[in-house]
């Protein structure tokens, strides 16, 4: 009896403790947060934290927007109630923050039956919200969209199954501020694609329908907006064109085909604003007509899938305003520096270019890894020795007779006058030798390159994110200014974008389970 009483008392006291824990746990489970950097004219100016706090009613949720400045200091919060929202994009100009959401009346709803689900009105929109720095929502616009939502089953317990709508935009919302003018918004749904211009009060200036394509990228430049379109064509990476629109009236300018003078397709490695003129430019590689689609395997990069590199500067709206620079190496014109196959004699390696950017002196830099290929002598000897067995050589040769390895990074410079040269190399960790028929992504092992800018000193930097270290390379000084180990004493480090002239260091301490952020100078 005493034992039973004790058990009962224990369970009661546990209830008191767990009731509190349970309620906090359940309430916190309803809270969801999305964080986005706020971009203005390609500069990160702050951060927005969008939080779904709780279900407010059958159809709506309570939300909170928290604004932080570029130093991660809180500026203020705004609360509002809406039906299911998912933050898609953010832009800022003239003290107005434009936020674009995907709004869905069925978001978070699970129906007992298909019948019940079909009875419910499906109301999906792209919602644009205009928030002032006084914490006021100046205007909200709803643009109905067709998400082509399907009913899918969702298990709710061991025995009960519910149904929910699932669907998405065919092209995610893209937002850009048009400096001193307003905001440009692009998205695509099952019914087509739309390009919309807003003023700073949130009034729609115009809306244009755009034919659906494989992919789109939006860019603002001075008083124009540009839409880079990629359609499916013979070459996986080709098929791009660029269309400009006047922001004031939506009038379009003649379409620019992204191809060389012989009509060869081009890849897009960067589509952005020239840091000095602000004009749009695209740059990338010239696709080889024969081997241009042979990608994926590491050996393919030794068979010249690309014939050269290019830049196109859009300095006006007419054909004559385009400044096009094409550098081919497959015609032998770049010898002795680069062979017809794209082999660099200086580094005795092939050049797998994966990143490109424009500096403040009009140079375009292409960055990528050195690749070497060697014959597997052992395999050839073994296949000769085992030739009488017939099956032996087949087995050995099936694994390939060559092997590949990635070495340092090449920084290749294309000057404004069109001279291509190997500017420097960045020391990276060599990969091991892989069979040539290995996927390139496996050999690359997550190595990536991207650029950072310091507008103040007009300096560009390459970030070489390698397996062991992250190197920050100053393009002007031609040297590594920082080496940041990915892992040191149980801390995992990654870096990300931050305010102008800075980068964000994100350190995750696995052992003590905390994340430390720091915004460090590029100087």
């Amino acid at each position, binding site marked *: 009896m005493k034992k039973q009483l004790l058990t009962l008392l224990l369970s009661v006291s546990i209830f008191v403790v767990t009731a509190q824990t349970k309620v906090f746990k359940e309430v916190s489970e309803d809270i969801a947060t999305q964080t986005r950097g706020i971009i203005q004219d390609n500069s990160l100016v702050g951060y927005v934290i969008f939080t779904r706090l709780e279900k407010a009613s*059958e159809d709506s949720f309570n939300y909170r927007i928290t604004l932080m400045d570029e130093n991660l200091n809180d500026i203020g919060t705004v609360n509002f109630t809406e039906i299911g929202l998912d933050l898609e994009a953010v832009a800022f100009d003239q003290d107005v923050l434009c936020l674009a959401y995907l709004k869905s009346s069925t978001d978070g709803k699970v129906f007992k039956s298909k019948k019940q689900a079909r009875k419910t009105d499906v109301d999906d929109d792209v919602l644009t919200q205009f928030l002032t720095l006084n914490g006021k929502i100046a205007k909200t616009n709803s643009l109905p969209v067709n998400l082509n939502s399907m009913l899918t089953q969702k298990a709710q317990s061991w025995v009960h199954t519910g149904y929910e709508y699932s669907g998405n935009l065919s092209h995610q919302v893209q937002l850009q501020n048009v400096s001193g003018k307003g905001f440009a918004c692009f998205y695509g749904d099952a019914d087509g694609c739309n390009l919309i211009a807003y003023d700073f009060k949130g009034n729609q200036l115009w809306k244009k329908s755009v034919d659906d394509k494989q992919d789109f990228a939006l860019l603002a430049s001075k008083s124009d907006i540009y839409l880079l379109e990629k359609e499916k064509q013979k070459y996986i990476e080709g098929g791009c064109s660029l269309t400009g629109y006047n922001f004031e009236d939506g009038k379009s300018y003649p379409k620019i085909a992204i191809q060389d003078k012989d009509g060869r397709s081009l890849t897009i490695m960067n589509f952005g604003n020239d840091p000095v003129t602000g004009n749009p430019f695209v740059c990338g590689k010239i696709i080889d007509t024969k081997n241009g689609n042979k990608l994926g395997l590491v050996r393919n990069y030794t068979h010249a899938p690309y014939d050269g590199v290019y830049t196109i500067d859009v300095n006006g709206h007419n054909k004559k305003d385009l400044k096009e620079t094409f550098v081919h190496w497959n015609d032998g014109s770049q010898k002795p520096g680069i062979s017809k196959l794209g082999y660099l004699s200086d580094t005795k390696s092939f050049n797998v270019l994966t990143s490109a950017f424009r500096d403040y002196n009009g140079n375009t830099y292409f960055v990528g890894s050195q690749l070497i290929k060697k014959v597997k002598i052992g395999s050839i000897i073994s296949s000769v020795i085992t030739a009488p067995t017939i099956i032996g050589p087949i087995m050995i040769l099936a694994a390939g007779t060559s092997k590949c390895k990635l070495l340092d990074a090449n920084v290749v410079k294309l000057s404004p006058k069109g001279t291509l040269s190997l500017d420097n190399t960045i020391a990276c960790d060599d990969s091991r030798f892989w069979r040539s028929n290995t996927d390139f992504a496996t050999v690359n092992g997550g190595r990536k390159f991207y650029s950072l800018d310091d507008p103040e000193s007009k300096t560009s930097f390459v970030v070489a994110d390698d397996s062991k270290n992250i190197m920050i390379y100053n393009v002007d000084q031609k040297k590594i200014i920082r080496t940041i180990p990915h892992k040191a004493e149980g801390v995992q480090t990654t870096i990300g974008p931050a305010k102008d002239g800075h980068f964000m260091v994100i350190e995750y301490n696995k052992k003590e389970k905390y994340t430390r952020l720091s915004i460090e*100078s590029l100087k």
Partner: protein
Amino acid sequence: MCKVCNRTLLLVIIFLAFSLHSHAQTADLYSYSDLSMFSFAKQKDSLKKAWDCPQLYKDKATQKKYKEIWNARTEFITSAIEANSYINDGKIYNYIEAIIYDLYKANPQLLKQKPLLLIDRSASVNAYALGGNVIAVNLGLITFAQSREELVLAIAHELSHNILNHPEKSMKETAEWLTSDEYKNSLKAVLDSKYQRLTRLKKVMESYTFSRSRHSRYHETDADSLAIILLKNSHISFDPEFFLRLDSSDNEYREPLKNPTKSYFASYHVPIDDAWFNQRSKGLSSHTYNFNSSTVIVDSLKTHPDCVERYEKTKAEINITGKLTPIPAEIKVRANKMLIWNIYDNLSLTECLYRIFLEKDKGNIDPWYDFMSYNVLSGLYYSNKQLNRFNAVGIKSKEFISKNYYELQNLLEQMPATTLEALIKAGSNATFWSNLPPDAKGMKALFASLNFDTDNATKAEAAAATNFMNSNPSSMYCEFAEHFKK
């Protein structure tokens, strides 16, 4: 004796007097063993033993919750002692203890036992009662107070909390509330509700907080009234104006500097670009924004809320007899230095340097402040190397700081590492080092290793830190070296 000889002799005497004075000031701040981890080790153990949770409730859940809260208090104070949050330097400790002793002697009916005093190293202008006859006084309060009477008032107020058993009552109220049917039902109602769960939960918590703050407001009024009695019994003046001064105690970094920010770096003779003092990024911080309550400190969030109300309630009790007693200069100087050092050791480098500049504005030429300026720049260089400069600078929103502070934090954030290195080199060769004791000089060698040893950096840092601690075992700066020894 001729006139020239006389003048020379006078100069020599003045120089000697000054150098002795400055040396005395820097050599004798406190020793490493004065930190609470060492100096309060016995008290910590005694507290653990003495603070045994009393059996107050028949209801097991309430008693259990009460014990949890009780133990949390013990854990708070013992952890703070271990973390060196307190210091027993002798001089400041004795000065504050003498104040408590005066109050204790004059109020035998109310203060049956002499309280245990802790000097908290925090810069916050505050003192606090922990119950169990323990009281803590922050260094921030000592530097803020303009007279002994102001300090006495703050201490008497905290002693009153202990006399009136406010900490114990608060623990009891919390335990009772958290185990009450009302609280449990409110939580259950949150779980049962389909909508607005967070709002409902916040309301439950707010109703508790409101009730607590209402009680706490009564507690503050009661403590103020009793403090005035303690002061009267001790024949100590009471000036209610102190409450009004307390109202602005959170604005310490809004105080402007007397000279342009750049001028404080003139002695280094290193070119400093004016542009570095301005925020050059296009960030939101440079915009004008006006969200509700984002630009002012709401009264409830102040360290000392309701100050005006407290002034109004007590102003009739004003009792100033004679001149207010100034706090001895030595106490003020020591408290300020200890506070600056603690801010530095906690890696708040802009705060630290700004306080140094404020001190220089007072005409203080003590070389210890030049030494600390050097430490700030060296620490910043080290933080830059460690990719931790952003956290070392600790950027504050412009609304809560002066224009000079804003410029200083911009400078510390944006100054290139090469300029920092040049400043450190210039600082290393400055003349102030000759007036410093050996342990301060040892810091220069320690920083040289931290900042400029490139081979096997972590091991070299640990070795340099160990070497410093072995060479200067009693130095207060061992606390800093300890970070790298680990």
